[in-house]
């Protein structure tokens, strides 16, 4: 008997094949796996975007919040009404009438102006004029008493 060569024997391996039925289920499973991968990839991409945004915003958020608070204090707001009770002083009615906008640079003049404003408030009730006070730096005594008083029409 003539024995086969090693090469002949190894060629036998080429005849070890799965059936046609196997390939049908193989294709179906592979399609499922591929689609799962696509969905997983999309989810991963979405979560990666969220993670990146969070990573960027986490250190920025406190700074942004602080900046917002600072801006809220510094930018004049029409809605902010002073709780400061003006001193009613009717000694100089003509001053308020001729100077609706002014900035005072001393505690004395500030009080003077406010006193005049209160006069204006009272004087302007009938004509639809009112006054609002905004304090730069939060307190007039801290910045040398500089107080901005604007008129709203």
């Amino acid at each position: 008997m003539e024995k086969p060569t090693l090469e002949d024997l190894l060629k036998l391996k080429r005849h070890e094949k799965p059936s046609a039925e196997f390939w049908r289920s193989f294709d179906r499973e592979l399609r499922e796996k591929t689609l799962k991968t696509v969905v997983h990839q999309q989810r991963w991409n979405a979560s990666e975007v969220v993670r990146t945004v969070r990573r960027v915003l986490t250190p920025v958020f406190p700074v942004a919040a602080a900046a917002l608070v600072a801006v809220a204090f510094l930018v004049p707001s029409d809605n902010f009404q002073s709780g400061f009770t003006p001193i009613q002083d009717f000694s100089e009615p003509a001053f308020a009438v001729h100077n609706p906008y002014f900035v005072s640079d001393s505690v004395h003049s500030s009080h003077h102006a406010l006193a005049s404003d209160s006069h204006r408030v009272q004087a302007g009730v009938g004509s639809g004029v009112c006054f609002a006070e905004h304090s730069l730096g939060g307190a007039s005594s801290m910045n040398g008493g500089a107080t901005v008083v604007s008129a709203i029409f």
Partner: protein
Amino acid sequence: MGLLQSVTKPTQAASAQVASADSDADWLLVQRAQAGEMAAFNVLVKKYRERLYSVIYNLTANREDTADLTQDAFVKAFQSIGRFQGRSAFFTWLYRIGVNTALSHLKKNRFRRFLSFETLQESALKEDVFTAMADDSGADKSLFMNELQERLNESLQKLSHKHRTAVVLFEIEGLSHQEIGEIMGCSEGTARSRVHYAKQQLQGLLKDYIQR
């Protein structure tokens, strides 16, 4: 000799042309798959699934694992097809993914291995050399073939991963030493030496069944 050369050269040239045309067709399909066309990738799967399955099966000798590993290899190829630049043939790139997937699996599961073989197709029984052997042995032909198949697979599993890969790709898949080098990430010479050494070992392991 002159006649042999004149016959061989056009044959080689023709096969090179076929391989080149095949490679070009693959590259077009790859480009369509890279553009997001799933149908193009499915064509590539249909074209190479049996060959990739065969490589992985001959490395693992376990048909249940092979089905999963082949699918995993295709999924990996699908995931990274965007990075394929066409510097090598598509099938070389795909085989590399398949071989790496199979070898990683073998390394992970080296302590719990069991073998399960595919059924030999009817065509194997028609090979003259095996028919003659079966007749001489006096055993039932299919039983004899199954025994031969078992011995062969066991012997292959006794080889190291590198030698097994080299001999499977060369003798069973019919790849060239250069292609094996590309797939295994080694030189052509190293691939040649691995095939030679693997065959020497197999000769020793299968001495009762083969010619010296």
